[in-house]
């Protein structure tokens, strides 16, 4: 009764987030900011232990004020220099008392492409339909206004 295309379409609305940004910087520079664990952590807001390697897990501690007690694991999937970088993680894993390891992960992908005066980056996070809805609701409640509020604080903090 369910066709593949229909399923993909149905999922796309709630299953993934896609952001495209154009950066006025050479592709090599943008690549380093994403694929070097040090630099990634600097703009993302976490301190990563070690370097990114394909099919390896790396642990990070958030450096975002109010969240700096949290660690999270990034499982790097694929690294294609200057073109593609992807990892899996547990989104919204913000309760230190909960063991998220058995729960489904989402896939985060960075696609890089050269454009006229810089680099286009497409960030895709997908797999949300498999995250238990209970977890989503709980994360929202715990966050007191959610990430949206937090993101604003964050923008002020890094500005």
């Amino acid at each position, binding site marked *: *009764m*369910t*066709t593949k295309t*229909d*399923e993909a379409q*149905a*999922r796309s609305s*709630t299953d993934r*987030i896609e*952001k495209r*940004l154009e*950066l*006025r*910087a050479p592709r090599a*520079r*943008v690549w380093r*900011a*994403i694929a070097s664990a040090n*630099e990634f952590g*600097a*703009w*993302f*807001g976490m301190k990563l232990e070690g370097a990114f390697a394909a099919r390896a897990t790396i642990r990070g501690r958030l450096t975002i004020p109010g969240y700096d007690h949290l660690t999270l694991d990034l499982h790097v999937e694929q690294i294609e220099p200057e073109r593609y970088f992807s990892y899996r993680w547990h*989104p*919204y894993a913000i309760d230190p008392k909960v063991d998220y390891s058995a729960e489904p992960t989402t896939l985060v992908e960075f696609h890089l492409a050269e454009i006229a005066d810089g680099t286009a*980056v497409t*960030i895709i*996070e997908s797999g*949300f*339909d*498999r995250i*238990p*809805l*209970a*977890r*989503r*609701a709980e*994360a*929202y409640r715990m*966050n007191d206004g*959610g*990430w*949206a509020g*937090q*993101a*604003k604080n*964050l*923008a002020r903090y*890094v500005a």
Partner: protein
Amino acid sequence: MLPDRSAAVFAALGDTTRLALLRRLSADGPLSITRLSEGTGVTRQAITRHLRALGRAGLVRDARRGRERVFALDVKRIEKARQYLDDVAAQWDAAALRLKAFVEPQT
């Protein structure tokens, strides 16, 4: 919400007939089973079964209206899933701005 119930949410959303029912209820609801089966080529029994699955997932509620039972979306539940995604998206927006500031030369 119990975890088994959230499993029901995703099972419910993974079926085209049920998604069509949700879309229909969103546009024209509340509706009776008779109205919901009209023009779908799906039997009343099948529609009833799908509505029951949606009900178990907490996505749809039913109420009596006169002599018939009508079904409506449980907007709150659907909102919650939406809100979460909006939130994660906002988080990426903020991260994207930080990445931009990080790689672009200061002017």
